[in-house]
């Protein structure tokens, strides 16, 4: 049991430590460094208030820069080198990437994913959140829709093999086709172009739960009076939803959209396990995994391309944040 004890202790130390840090650093700031006393009281208060945000931010920023910023910078440098870490190639990796058909295909597919999956998941999540909102068994329904979130990607891919398999004895789709007399089984993950969408369906199936949870919390935060007012104004449920509720939770929708977009840009497991990137289904993260630990120069270059793809999303978020701050 000592590991458990260790775990409990860590929770205590970790949580206590965090609170302790924030509490003590605050106190030190207010009482010791910039005491609100004496002739400099006003100035000190101002200084303390200028420092305080950084106190609050410090642990998070520290971890972020150590665990994420630093590796990203390292990766960027690494991406300037070839397969052999001593061989400087400048932008060579990027240039050859963009010249490669596979990369272009992966890039194109990835854009498809980044548009379609967030859109569909957010929409479905919103739909479910709204529909289940007032249902007596809504919580149960939500849990069911949420369930895929709790399944690992590998498990999820397995599940979907039972749906997509090109054997009417295993794959549900082909079983249905067979039952309806459609003749030969088809392998849906081999249908050019559309197979991408069949793979996306899996991620949508998973991410809808995420969107639902967040959006349902947001829907519940809408002031009831505005809804009541709209009902009195004669809005039908449809208008109520699209004209009153959706605009009010727009910031949350952006959050959900962003998060899912980012998930899309990171998840390689589905493509990896379903098709291994074959049949024209390669996407950037799975393409990156082909090089990961083999040709780090190229793998890191792909990683950075992925990060660049996310710029528009970042931009829209910054704009939203600006708007909130007036």
């Amino acid at each position, binding site marked *: 049991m000592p590991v458990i004890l260790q775990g409990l202790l860590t929770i205590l130390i970790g949580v206590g430590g965090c609170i302790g840090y924030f509490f003590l650093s605050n106190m030190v700031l207010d009482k010791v460094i910039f005491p609100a006393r004496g002739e400099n009281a006003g100035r000190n208060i101002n200084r303390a208030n200028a420092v305080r945000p950084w106190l609050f931010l410090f642990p998070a920023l520290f971890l972020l820069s150590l665990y994420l910023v630093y590796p990203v910078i390292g990766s960027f440098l690494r991406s300037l080198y070839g397969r052999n870490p001593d061989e400087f190639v400048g932008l060579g990796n990027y240039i*050859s990437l963009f010249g490669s058909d596979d990369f272009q295909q992966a890039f194109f597919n990835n854009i498809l994913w980044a548009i379609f999956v967030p859109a569909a998941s957010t929409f479905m999540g919103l739909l479910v959140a709204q529909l289940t909102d007032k249902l007596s068994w809504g919580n149960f329904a939500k849990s069911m829709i949420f369930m895929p979130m709790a399944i690992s990607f590998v498990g999820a891919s397995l599940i979907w093999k039972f749906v997509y398999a090109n054997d009417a004895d295993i794959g549900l789709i082909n079983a249905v086709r067979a039952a309806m007399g459609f003749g030969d*089984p088809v392998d849906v993950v081999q249908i050019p172009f559309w197979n991408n969408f069949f793979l996306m369906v899996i991620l949508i199936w998973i991410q809808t739960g995420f969107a639902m949870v967040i959006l349902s919390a947001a829907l519940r935060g809408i002031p009831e009076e505005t809804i009541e007012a709209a009902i009195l104004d004669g809005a039908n449920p449809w208008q109520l939803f699209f004209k009153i509720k959706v605009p009010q939770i727009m910031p949350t929708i952006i959050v959900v959209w962003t998060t899912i977009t980012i998930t899309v840009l990171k998840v390689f497991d589905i493509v990896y396990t379903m098709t291994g990137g074959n049949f024209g289904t390669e996407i950037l993260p*799975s393409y990156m995994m082909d090089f990961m630990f083999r040709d780090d120069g190229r793998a890191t270059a792909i990683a950075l391309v992925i990060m660049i793809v996310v710029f528009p999303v970042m931009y829209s978020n910054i704009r939203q944040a600006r708007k909130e701050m007036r």
Partner: protein
Amino acid sequence: QDLKYPVGEGDFNWDSYQAYADAHDYSGETISITGPWTGADNELFSSVIAYFEAATGATVNYSGSESFENDIVVSTQANSAPNIAVFPQPGLLADLAARGKVTPLSDETAAWITENYAAGQSWADLASFAGEDGETKLYAFPYKIDVKSLVWYSPEQFEEAGYDVPETYEDLKALTEQIEADGGTPWCIGLGSGAATGWPATDWIEDIMLRTVEPAVYDEWTTHGIPFNDERVVNAINEFGYFLQDGRVNAGREAAANTDFRDSPAGLFSFPPECYLHKQATFIPTFFPEGTVVGEDADFFYFPAPAEGDLGKPVLGGGTMFAVTADSEATQGFLQFLQTPLAHEIWMSQSGFLSPLKSANADVFPSDSQRNMNNILTNATTFRFDGSDLMPGEIGAGAFWSEMVAFTTGSQDAQTTADNVEARWAEMGK
């Protein structure tokens, strides 16, 4: 862990064990090993380790990992590597050796391998790479070999249909056509393997290569001495295409490209049979339907060589290699332990283990069929390691796989397939 067989019992080479035990004592020392063996294989390997522990008093921590290849790269780069890593792919090992992450083995070990392993020199060569300093040294000890040149079938179905085991590559083609003519489907092929989808097809190409070109050409092929789109390679791919033709593969070639390799042999055992032949390595019985007895319900024959030509009986195989990633005395001791016949016999006597070690007693094999497999290995006139494992990862575990998938589905011809791989390989060289 208890010893699987009490010391002194059975046909095992106990002398070698005793001698080793007397010479080595590592009490209190610990060594760590990581490798690709998990589940049942993990237990089997542990039964071998137990004898080492008993003999030396050392403790061995073995951990198997599904994602061994990634894990070992991470841990060597982060300087937390285990003492010994068991590499299933020489390509990755070569990479790490070139980066100086692996300790070379002694020249005596190299000599020992040459001497004691069947086709010893080829084994020693296989495990020798250029190190960080550019000097070629022995970096690993091969142990546990798979034979890939096997074709599996159901003896009873053969008997019923009146088919004979083909002796030559030409016979195999004739049988294929005959089965087709009889209204059956000759082959079950499945390339599906998640992220690794396509690798079974590369085994086909390698086997066909060994049967159509000189071994030296094969070696040049795997080292990019000749371009990948050499006409001989294209020819080999076309040969594979012969088996993929309509009516020769269960459910058609498109399905084959995505059928899981673990599921595809099941066709051999259904009634009526969905297929009569399945080419796969020694390990495949694990995935036969439960209760299938190798030797009775299922059997194998050597993927035959052409009658014409003088290429002999080439054998394609794979295997694992023990490399030292963090040296210590006990680590060296463990590698010496692997040189005792007993270290091979223990695993041999259980399942799924072939060894080129000549001094290992073949009597300990639990069944004839395993002994036969080992014979295929030891009788090989040419032994070649799985070519895709020798190629750089992006090719051997990347482009080669995926292009073969594309070829199998029929969406591109052999020339394009070879050209595409060559393009990737050529670009890498830059």
